[in-house]
């Protein structure tokens, strides 16, 4: 503030008390202390033999990872759209939900035809294709109808629009499919058991989820870094105008981005079906926000970061309540699972707003 007046730099920097910073430091310290105290408390509980057993912990970690992988795949959509258009596509959770709902219809038809029992792998593949194409289509339609006219508007305008789109889609599906909860047909014996890998028994569905997540991330990574279209996507994310001048069809590239994000959400939709089975029109809301948290955690705009963030968030939200909150003597910690995810979001943004793998941006671009 007084830079213009000062002629020679004084040796002692005047300490100015800034109470916002102090408050943020207070939150940081309090968070760390809480985590440490809770952790110690949980270890004591464990040693006293009161908490979950080692086996239960192992299952918990595996299911948290598989759930986190699902968040990661949804987060890819947020991350890509944010990278290219610079706004949070609040409706992405609903893109995911559309995949789960239409996927249910396909699964139910297959079940009635008897194919679900006979050839579960092929059935799941068909459902996967249906869910992917639905989510892709919804994402593309939303882009064309709602976001394209807002190209170049200040970023809060598309954000508010996307909130509207989110509600519109939710209640469209409520109107079309009814408000009741639908349940995917039960998986046949062959894949509902456990397989043993490296001496660790893992539920087949969870293993499947993790494998699908890894595969689709690799495919996506290949697509974005090695193909021509992927290069166009990155170029448009870098600078729309220059990319346009270089002969890239910007509109088409943006639609492609939405389509890819939608497809990944469709894959995540099938994972949801494998993990939880029941779907309704509000299915997309919480996973959507959590996936956004995952994207921020990994560094928004960074694709490997999104998946990493998803897995970390899944772990944090899955094990956090038992690992930290239970140690603080809080009853019925599983109720606080969602709150833990949101607190993680707040803490990430306070501790490291650029995310784990994100680079530090200039103040203009930052948050």
């Amino acid at each position, binding site marked *: 503030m007084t830079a213009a007046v000062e002629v020679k730099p004084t040796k002692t920097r005047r300490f100015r008390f800034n109470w*916002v910073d102090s*408050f*943020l430091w207070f*939150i940081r310290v309090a968070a760390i202390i809480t985590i440490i105290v809770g952790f110690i408390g949980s270890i004591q509980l464990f040693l006293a033999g009161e908490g979950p057993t080692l086996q239960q912990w192992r299952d918990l970690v595996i299911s948290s990872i598989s759930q986190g992988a699902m968040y990661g795949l949804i987060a890819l959509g947020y991350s890509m759209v944010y990278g290219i258009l610079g*706004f*949070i596509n609040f409706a992405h959770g609903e893109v995911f939900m559309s995949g789960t709902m239409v996927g249910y*219809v396909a699964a*139910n038809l297959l079940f009635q035809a008897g194919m679900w029992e006979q050839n579960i792998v092929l059935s799941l593949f068909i459902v996967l294709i249906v869910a992917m194409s639905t989510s892709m289509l919804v994402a593309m339609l939303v882009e064309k109808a*709602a976001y394209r*006219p*807002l190209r*170049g*508007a*200040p*970023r*809060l*305008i*598309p*954000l*508010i*629009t996307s*909130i*509207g*789109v*989110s*509600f*519109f*889609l*939710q*209640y*469209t599906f*409520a*109107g*079309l*499919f*009814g408000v009741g909860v639908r349940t995917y047909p039960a998986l046949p014996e062959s894949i509902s058991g456990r397989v043993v890998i490296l001496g660790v028994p893992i539920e087949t569905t969870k293993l499947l989820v993790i494998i699908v997540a890894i595969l689709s991330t690799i495919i996506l990574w290949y697509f974005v870094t090695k193909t021509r279209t992927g290069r166009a996507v990155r170029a448009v994310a870098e600078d729309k105008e220059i990319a346009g001048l270089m002969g890239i069809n910007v509109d088409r590239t943006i639609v492609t981005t939405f389509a890819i994000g939608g497809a990944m959400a469709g894959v995540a939709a099938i994972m949801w079906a494998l993990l939880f089975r029941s779907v309704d029109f509000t299915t997309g*809301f919480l996973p959507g*926000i959590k996936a*956004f*948290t995952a994207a*921020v955690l990994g560094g928004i705009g960074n694709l490997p970061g999104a998946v990493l963030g998803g897995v970390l968030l899944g772990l944090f939200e899955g094990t956090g309540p038992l690992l930290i909150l239970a140690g603080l003597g*809080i*009853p*019925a910690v599983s*109720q*606080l699972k*969602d*709150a833990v995810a*949101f*607190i993680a*979001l*707040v803490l990430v*943004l*306070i501790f490291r*707003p650029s995310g784990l793998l994100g680079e530090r941006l200039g*103040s*203009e671009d*930052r*948050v």
Partner: protein
Amino acid sequence: MNLRKGVNRGLITGLAMSFVGGIGMVTTFNNKLLIDPILTMGYAVLFGIPFVIALISTKRVVLEGVEVEPHGAGDVLFGAVIGLVGGVMTALYVLLINAVDLTETFPNMGPPTVQEMTFHQDLYVGMGLLVLGTVVAATIGGTVRLIPERVRQSLAQGLLWVLAFAFLELIVEDIFEFAKVVTQFIYAQNGGLTVASATVIFIVSAALAYRFRGGASVLRQRLVGTDERGRSFPTKLALLLIGVGVVVLPMVLGGVVNELLINVSLFMLMGLGLNIVIGMAGLLDLGYVAFFAVGAYTTAVLTAAQSPTWNPELGWWGALAVTMVMAVIAGIMVGTPVIRMRGDYLAIVTLGFGEIVRILLLSDWLKPYFGGAQGIRGIPGINIFGQRISGVDPQLFIYFCIFFVGIAVLVSYRLLYSRVGRAWAAMREDEDVAEATGVGTVGAKLLAFVTGAVLASFAGALMSAKIGTVFTNSFDVLVSIIILVVVIVGGMGSIPGVMVGALVLIGVLGGPRSPGLLAEFSQYKLLIYGMILIVMMLKRPEGLIPSARRSRELHHEELTQDAWLDKKGQFSTDQAEEVPV
């Protein structure tokens, strides 16, 4: 005429009409009669679609130096094409859902919808009627632009008034309760206007609109357009009349309508609070409901005898003082961590805060204090003059709501035109520049959060006194979103806009848990809210009644340019793409 465009729009029409049928809207809305034997709300919506699409499609985009094709017979034909394609598509859709039973997956695509969409006629006759109706509606939509502007506007006014009377049936009947003759003339036995009254209303209002064209906007300019200083005598008189009206109206109206108005005023209060945060300071807060919850729960804990752990059983006003303090603390707690965040991150973090509050209140952990899922019951009403006033007598309760809305309006206006208000405006436009010119952004942001929080906590305190119980159900994210819609529709930063927005949206559509004037809407109101949000953002981001300051900011460049281009200085408000938020 462009055939390809016509077919294209026709397909969109067909899709929209099938959609409206497929989500069961036609069936549900048909329970509401607008004009007794001839028009129900379902059909109004169904045939409104081709009409509106044809109307929009025939609009000419005027570009500088480009010859525009004049309106003519081509437009009528265009409308007819849209109607034909749309109608045939919808008819085929009806044929499909009649032939294939889809109700297992799509519960609304069954026989009831088919019957409503074929007008309870034989299938093929009904399909023919459907196509015919669509063609007629779309053709009318295409023809509208051929009518001279003045006549067209008068007709539109007439139509609007008919719709308004049909929608406001409940209120009009309530007001004229002493004169049954009037209501019996206007409304039919089983709801809806009678044909005669609809005709009269249409002719009278259209004629009045034709005669006094532009009068309303001049009046509005006088009322709204002026700044706080230099209000003329007529303005003061008008304000006085509004004031008297506000005081007298609740006495005239019955319990049901007052109940509705209480809901409206609670949302008005929260809308005004959120308007300070979003509209004036430009901070998109999606967890605003948290402050509402803080207000409601603090009041509940302090006043209710059945509060689980602490129950000091204070009076409502005593509790209000504590509530305010709690709201200030909550505002600071939420505001400080997010102070360095901008725009979208702020939105999502505040959304997170809102959910955290709800989850914590619902949890078993805090159940000993806040009652968990059961909530807190037995909250006494507002104590005044030795009486307890609660939601049981809405006619009295509404005066407290009016009082607090009054406070909110006063606070909003005083802040808007104060140093703080200017600081907010500067911060909203460009934070860095504001900081560089000496605006303390940290303080300004916190003040915005705190003021908003206090206003929302008032709404919470009123609500808990009104209902007598608080549940976590009343505080989910829907509330935040609906308040956001109210602010956006009214116009961010515009105080009258937010009030009108609350009146129209909450009054007609209803709040998240409470029904509005039209109970038929309740199933679809969130769909409609979402649609309104999208359409507003695309077409009119500054809101229906934009704030004077914002309009000046938005259209400053256009004004100078257009004044130079043509003397009339008419500028389109649709071109608001560079809206700084």
